[in-house]
């Protein structure tokens, strides 16, 4: 399946969020992940408050409606009173800001004259304050892609949110270690032309970030949000796409979803919603449905909602494996924390029999063209869940709702919350505005260009050169400093030897740390290169090294070789080499041994 994206009016842009490798943005905590048993926990609640304009934000109200409380796990090593919203923030971390300024410079963006820190209302608990601090650093940048220029209207710096550890119907548990880690956010204009182009743009931006450096690496440290809409559709913010390979799928499936929802809207003309909830607990008391039995065993109820004319539509697939009913059920789940929602298009199933389905139809006074929704839970929750379904069902006739959706691992997406309005941002008055600029335009060599240059000028394989370029090494400097050592060996020293040691001995060796010591000795021919893996192993274990056991001085070596030659008169060069190497392996370079053997043979 593929669309003519121009014809359907695709508008697509991405926002890249990349963690920066500095201390936290508004406190001096290190940006580290904490594991194990937290030092203590704090329990909080959040409420929607009116913003600058005097209105409560729609997304904030939505979160308030869920009536959850939040538990924060705190490790003293990674969170402080600022993260706990118990102390005012410090001014913005200068190291993080500098990285963002450099990225802005590479993207040819204009840095704002004075950066204003803002508060973005977020009351899902992921920020202890009820807002996320964010600041627009630069505007109007651009990158070149194979399908033309893509503008970058905004480059911002912001705080990372707290990490969800677990959640249930009433509470969400967060870890505060991640809260406050600096993020650079790069937002493109809605100029991305198609799914593949979206991936390419994301890749390019990722490459730039890694090339500038100072960014965190590894799973979860970079996330893409994708904004997608089609003509007559609605803007959707798809959150948390981590896998680049899935990006084209996300775009394609969202287009598909919107096309299908628009189709439903056109066909749904005769349908309606009866906005009352019918208690059908009595009728389903003996049902063998586990969900219903579970709800009833804890004094719950089964409520039904009548949807005349909806038959067939609720079960209609709008994304692979997802139906309109899935959207309804997402709303109910998110808004009321209920899990037991059934719609008539999927019945009989899940332990609800044909007889029970017919009984529902009859007792609700529905005809064959009509549909119904059942929710089993506590009365309050079931009622709130049906309110959410009513709200979503109403929109089927009117428009596709603007939503923030979660990017699922199969390329589909699920409803998270309504798209926030502009009332979300108000000034962070606890910190000063910042005048910042780079002294001069920041130039970088992209990782791919750098790899090519290393391969060409140092005559090393492209693979090895790429690994060196991606790492954080001053390779040019090392090559220059240790001029007697083959650049390919230095590259191997930095990447292949540690990899090999990890594989063979399961030891992590940061060879760069020992580069001066070990490569220096190699450069002076004090040690043979064969001994280096062993030396690194010893160094990594923290031992003091007796280098003399790895090297022999020339006179000693001469004596050994002379003895070998004299004891084995008439032996071939190969044979003599073999015996001599037995004595000198790891102590003297093979080439040197060969020279000596030749010398004494003559």
């Amino acid at each position, binding site marked *: 399946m593929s669309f003519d994206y121009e014809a359907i009016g695709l508008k697509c842009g991405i926002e890249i969020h990349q963690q920066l490798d500095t201390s936290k943005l508004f406190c001096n905590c290190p940006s580290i992940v904490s594991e194990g048993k937290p030092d203590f926990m*704090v*329990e*909080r*609640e*959040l*409420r*929607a*408050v*009116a913003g*600058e304009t*005097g209105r409560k934000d729609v997304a*904030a109200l939505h979160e308030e409606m869920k009536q959850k*409380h939040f538990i924060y796990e705190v490790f003293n090593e990674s969170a402080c*009173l600022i993260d*706990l*919203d*118990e*102390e*005012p923030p410090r001014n913005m971390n200068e190291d993080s800001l500098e990285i963002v300024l450099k990225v802005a410079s590479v993207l040819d963006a*204009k840095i*704002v*004259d*004075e*950066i*204003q820190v*803002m*508060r*973005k*209302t977020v*009351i899902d608990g992921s920020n*202890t*304050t*009820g*807002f996320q601090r*964010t*600041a*627009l650093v630069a*505007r*109007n940048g651009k990158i070149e892609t194979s399908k033309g220029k893509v503008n970058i209207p*905004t480059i*911002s710096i912001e705080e990372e949110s707290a990490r969800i550890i677990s959640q249930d119907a009433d509470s969400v548990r967060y870890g505060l270690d991640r809260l406050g880690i600096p993020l650079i956010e790069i937002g493109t204009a809605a100029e991305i032309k198609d799914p593949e182009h979206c991936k390419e743009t994301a890749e390019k931006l990722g490459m730039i970030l890694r090339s500038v450096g100072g960014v965190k690496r590894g799973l979860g440290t970079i996330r893409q949000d994708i904004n997608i809409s089609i003509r007559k559709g609605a803007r959707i913010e798809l959150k948390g796409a981590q896998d680049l390979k899935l990006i084209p799928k996300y775009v394609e499936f969202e287009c598909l979803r919107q096309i299908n929802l628009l189709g439903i809207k056109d066909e749904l003309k005769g349908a309606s919603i009866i906005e009352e909830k019918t208690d059908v607990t009595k009728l389903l008391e003996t049902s063998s449905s586990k969900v219903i039995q579970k709800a009833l065993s804890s004094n719950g109820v089964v409520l039904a909602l009548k949807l005349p004319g909806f038959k067939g539509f609720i079960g209609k697939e709008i994304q692979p494996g997802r139906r309109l009913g899935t959207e309804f059920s997402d709303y109910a789940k998110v808004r009321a924390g209920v899990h037991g929602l059934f719609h008539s298009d999927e019945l009989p199933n899940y332990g609800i029999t044909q007889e029970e389905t017919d009984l529902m139809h009859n007792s609700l006074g529905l005809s064959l063209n009509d549909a119904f929704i059942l929710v089993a839970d506590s009365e309050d929750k079931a009622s709130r869940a049906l309110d959410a379904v009513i709200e979503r069902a109403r929109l089927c006739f009117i428009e596709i709702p603007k939503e923030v959706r979660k990017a699922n691992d199969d390329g589909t997406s699920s409803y998270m919350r309504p798209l926030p309005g*502009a009332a*979300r*941002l*108000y*000034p962070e*008055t606890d910190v*000063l*505005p910042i*005048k910042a600029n780079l002294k001069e335009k920041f130039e970088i060599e992209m990782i791919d260009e750098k790899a090519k240059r290393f391969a060409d000028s140092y005559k090393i394989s492209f693979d090895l050169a790429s690994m060196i370029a991606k790492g954080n090494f001053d390779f040019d400097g090392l090559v220059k400093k240790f001029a007697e050592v083959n650049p390919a060996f230095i590259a191997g020293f930095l990447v292949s030897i540690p990899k090999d040691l990890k594989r063979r001995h399961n030891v992590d060796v940061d060879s760069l740390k020992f580069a001066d010591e070990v490569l220096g000795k190699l450069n002076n021919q004090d040690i043979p290169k064969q001994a280096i893996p062993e030396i690194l192993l010893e160094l990594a274990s923290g031992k003091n090294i007796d280098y003399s056991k790895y090297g022999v001085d020339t006179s000693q070596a001469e004596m050994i070789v002379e003895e070998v030659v004299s004891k084995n008169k008439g032996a071939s060069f190969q044979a003599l080499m073999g015996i001599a190497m037995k004595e000198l392996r790891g102590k003297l370079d093979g080439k040197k041994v060969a020279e000596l053997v030749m010398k004494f043979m003559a």
Partner: protein
Amino acid sequence: MECKPGDLVEVKTEDENIIGILMPRPEILDPNILVIKLDNGYNIGIDKSKIKSITLKEPYERHETHKRQLKHNPSLPNVTIISTGGTISSKLDYRTGGVYADYTAEDFVEMLPELENIANLKAKSIMHIMSEDMCYEHWKAIAEAAAEELNNGADGVIITQGTDTLHFSTAAVSFFLPNLSKPVVFTAAQRSIDRGSTDAFMNLICAVHAAAKSGIAEVMTCMHASMDDESCVLIRGTKVRKMHTSRRDAFRAINDIPIAKVHKNGKIEYLHKNFRPKTNEIVESDTKFEEKVALITVYPGMDPEIIDFYLDKGYKGIVLAATALGHVPVNGKHSLLDKLERARQMEIPVVIATQTLYGRVNPHVYTNLRKLSVGRGCIFVEDMLPETAYLKLGFVLGHEKGIEAAKKMMLQNLHGEMTERSEANEL
């Protein structure tokens, strides 16, 4: 044309046109920056020297917000919320970049609709002042307003103010309402009320519960018991102190334990019975007060002439926040002894409280303490907080003259400001 904050404007600079809302600029920040809110919600600062022109696109119209009327339910108790300003009633202030006081009691109800189910609320805003600017006239106004409300049908009163000097106000109002018969509950916020996480929400809910339903006829604070949004503690107004610059649970009972815990669901858990029970007596305010009382921190190397300064300015009483058991320098060039003698000659009472806050002063245990107590007639005020001692001395000197009379009243326990026994409470 002159553009005002809030107007939609177009700013032309050397290299771009920016459309957005003109924002107010705090006066203390660089005046050469113009702040614009872009349509994506972000504010940016533009260097004014780069601006070629600013044109008005759409003038700002202020929308009047309708405050809803508070309803009356005859089966519920009546509580008056007296607001005075502070973080709990603060909104953003674009003049200083900080927050300013603008909330009234109706706003609290707007924000916390459940308050209406706890009590019939009445709102009274008597001043808009940050707590660091408070002094006698404000404490007097608060005490008088509280008495008036309690005598006019309120079952309890809540006072909202800034946190910084909250413990000064509670001590002052404790002395100013000598025959209090109903709860007077001070509450406040450590986090501004414009954020979803503000502690004001639970503090207010618990304060309304305490004012409406508790049987405690004391002046007390109602603030977070811990960093959790779980419960508040009611602490006696003469024994409470702000012990942290910013935490929600900054307010602690010193040399005492809280009177009760108020859970956010309204449950009141009494921790002891040492409080005056609620009655229907008329509440009278007695705000006679001597303002010329100084609170001086004692420290090594201090200049003894600081005492002269106050004596020369006509001060009528001095509280020394002395070190630990009540010491001040008594030997060498920093000795205060001569100055204290001068005070005694002038019949100016000098009160000794401790800057350790925790623990009790002792007039006799060391020779150097006896030099102050026996030798100079200083009044050692047991485990009374220095701030409480300061307000009590002002109150005492509003009623009595001379060292002996002052001493007698200072050592009389009026509102639980001293304890008889030092229990081993948690610090």
